[in-house]
């Protein structure tokens, strides 16, 4: 295949990837978009296979590699529960990061194979710079994603781990990486040790960057690592002089960056303050002031009675619903209410759950039609017309202190105004504070009734009481 034809095909695959993301603007076009993505990937792979020289061993390695990796991927994709999607995405990011490191290493050791060696078999300085960036960002993505995975999967506590002088440590590692990149470039690619030092330092940096970030900030972290994996791919797109990789890297990089921005806005935090980490400590101090007043406790029967006789019920799901796997019971509750003639809607806060769009997927899994599910800005004005707000496993995103208490650590964060509804039901395991460690004054209001217990069991009891 001619190099020009190959370049055009890589361009086609890049465009198909753009269309894949474009499809996600609506659930109706999304499936077609995903198909475009698959076709784009197939074109890129087939084009490369035509461009390289294959021997028997090469074919065996490629077919074997794709079969092993593809088989594992297909099994995971089929079996993974929807509640575990944040962990899965973090794990996938780590693989992209590691692949970037490996490809950068191969490009350094065998530049001829990538067509980027000069007449004496060395790499030019610019290529060395690009592949150093590729391995550094890839390594940060890998180790950062492993930490994010461990935190999301519960192998590691979600609490921030704060090293002394952690900002200085990070700056020092960053400076070391920069010096080593310069050293590698100056050596014309012969200083292989410098490459490995860059990679190892970046692995460490990935860990030190992510461990101080607490559980509540995980949606930002996952989005940020998504972005990093894109920039790593783009850096190698420059090294490999490949349009498909360049375009994809740019798309994924900006996608992750936008999602991080949306998540930060949803928490009224600056991106910088999230990466610097440590959120949750100051809040914990103010929460120790203890509960102010008495919370009213209700039973499943009370909730069933009130909701059955309501005109409109808005359900507000949060991470607690995901943990308890309560989405199916919740959908059943919605159906029972609808059978009673009650208008049912779902309200989703942008940072509900552990990754962007987490709640929407879980509700979709439970067969809740997507046109009953609304984003914060579309539904917030409806709470005043609702008879009941049913908050299940959410807390901070409904906290009125974000609007009226300038002293609160979450002051200024956009919240769902559930308190404007006639009655607020809170399904929670205890009266404790949320992930941000902030007391929720809503628990002690007159029109609030606490339903203490496991989200799934409580919902099932309500369903029984209604039936």
């Amino acid at each position, binding site marked *: 295949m001619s190099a020009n034809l190959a370049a055009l095909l890589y361009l086609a695959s890049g465009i198909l990837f753009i269309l894949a993301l474009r499809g*996600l603007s609506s659930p109706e076009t999304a499936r077609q978009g995903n198909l475009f993505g698959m076709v784009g990937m197939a074109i890129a792979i087939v084009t490369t296979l035509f461009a390289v020289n294959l021997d028997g061993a090469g074919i065996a390695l490629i077919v074997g590699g794709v079969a092993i990796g593809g088989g594992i991927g297909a099994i995971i994709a089929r079996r993974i529960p929807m509640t575990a999607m944040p962990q899965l995405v973090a794990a996938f990011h780590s693989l992209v990061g590691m692949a970037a490191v490996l490809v950068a290493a191969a490009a350094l050791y065998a530049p001829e194979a*990538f067509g980027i060696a000069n007449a004496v078999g060395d790499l030019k300085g610019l290529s060395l710079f690009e592949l150093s960036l590729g391995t550094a960002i890839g390594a940060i993505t890998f180790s950062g994603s492993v930490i994010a995975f461990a935190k999301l999967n519960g192998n590691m506590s979600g609490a921030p781990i704060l090293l002394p002088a952690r900002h200085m440590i990070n700056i020092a590692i960053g400076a070391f990486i920069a010096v080593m990149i310069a050293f590698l470039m100056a050596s014309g690619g012969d200083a292989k040790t410098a490459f490995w030092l860059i990679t190892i330092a970046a692995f460490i940096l990935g860990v030190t960057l992510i461990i101080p970030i607490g559980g509540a900030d995980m949606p930002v972290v996952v989005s940020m690592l998504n972005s990093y994996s894109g920039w790593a791919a783009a850096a190698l*797109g420059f090294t490999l002089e490949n349009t*498909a990789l360049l375009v*994809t890297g740019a798309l994924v*990089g*900006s996608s992750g960056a936008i999602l991080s921005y949306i998540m930060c806005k949803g928490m009224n935090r600056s991106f910088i303050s999230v990466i610097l980490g440590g959120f949750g400590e100051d809040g914990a101090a103010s929460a120790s002031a203890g509960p102010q007043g008495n919370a009213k406790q209700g039973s499943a029967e009370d909730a069933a009675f009130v909701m059955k006789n309501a005109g409109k019920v808005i359900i507000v799901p949060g991470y607690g619903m995901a943990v308890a796997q309560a989405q199916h019971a919740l959908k059943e509750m919605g159906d029972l209410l609808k059978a009673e003639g009650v208008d049912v809607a779902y309200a989703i806060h942008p940072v509900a759950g552990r990754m*962007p769009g*987490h709640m929407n997927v879980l509700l979709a899994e439970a067969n809740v039609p997507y046109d009953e599910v609304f984003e914060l800005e579309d539904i917030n004005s409806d709470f005043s017309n609702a008879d009941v707000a049913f908050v299940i496993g959410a807390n901070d995103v409904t906290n009125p202190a974000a609007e009226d208490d300038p002293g609160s650590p979450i002051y200024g964060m956009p919240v769902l105004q559930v308190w404007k509804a006639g009655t607020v039901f809170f399904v929670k395991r205890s009266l404790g504070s949320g992930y941000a460690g902030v007391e929720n004054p809503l628990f002690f209001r007159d029109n609030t009734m606490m339903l203490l217990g496991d989200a799934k069991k409580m919902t099932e009891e309500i369903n029984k009481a209604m039936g």
Partner: protein
Amino acid sequence: MEAVDPTIYRLAIFVLAVFVGYYVVWSVTPALHTPLMAVTNAISSVIIVGALLAATAGVGAPPPVDGEGGEGFSRIVGTIAIILASVNIFGGFLVTQRMLAMYKKKER
């Protein structure tokens, strides 16, 4: 005027693609942000292109001029990278498909 370094053209493609990405991603409905992350994961595994080059290093080529012979190493890490990227490609696209199949409209 001297010829423009091809890297500049690649930089142009990259910068324009960042802008395309910016506008396309803002048009994604928030309800589909999780599938968006899964599918961006899958497409960023197009890095498999580099892995394929690495895994076939040295095939049919004259011995490298510098005689360093990093081809064996390149083929090993390339194959590992193929496995990792394949997990992502298949896993990413299939899990996206599974998620998207769940989004249904209200029956009327």
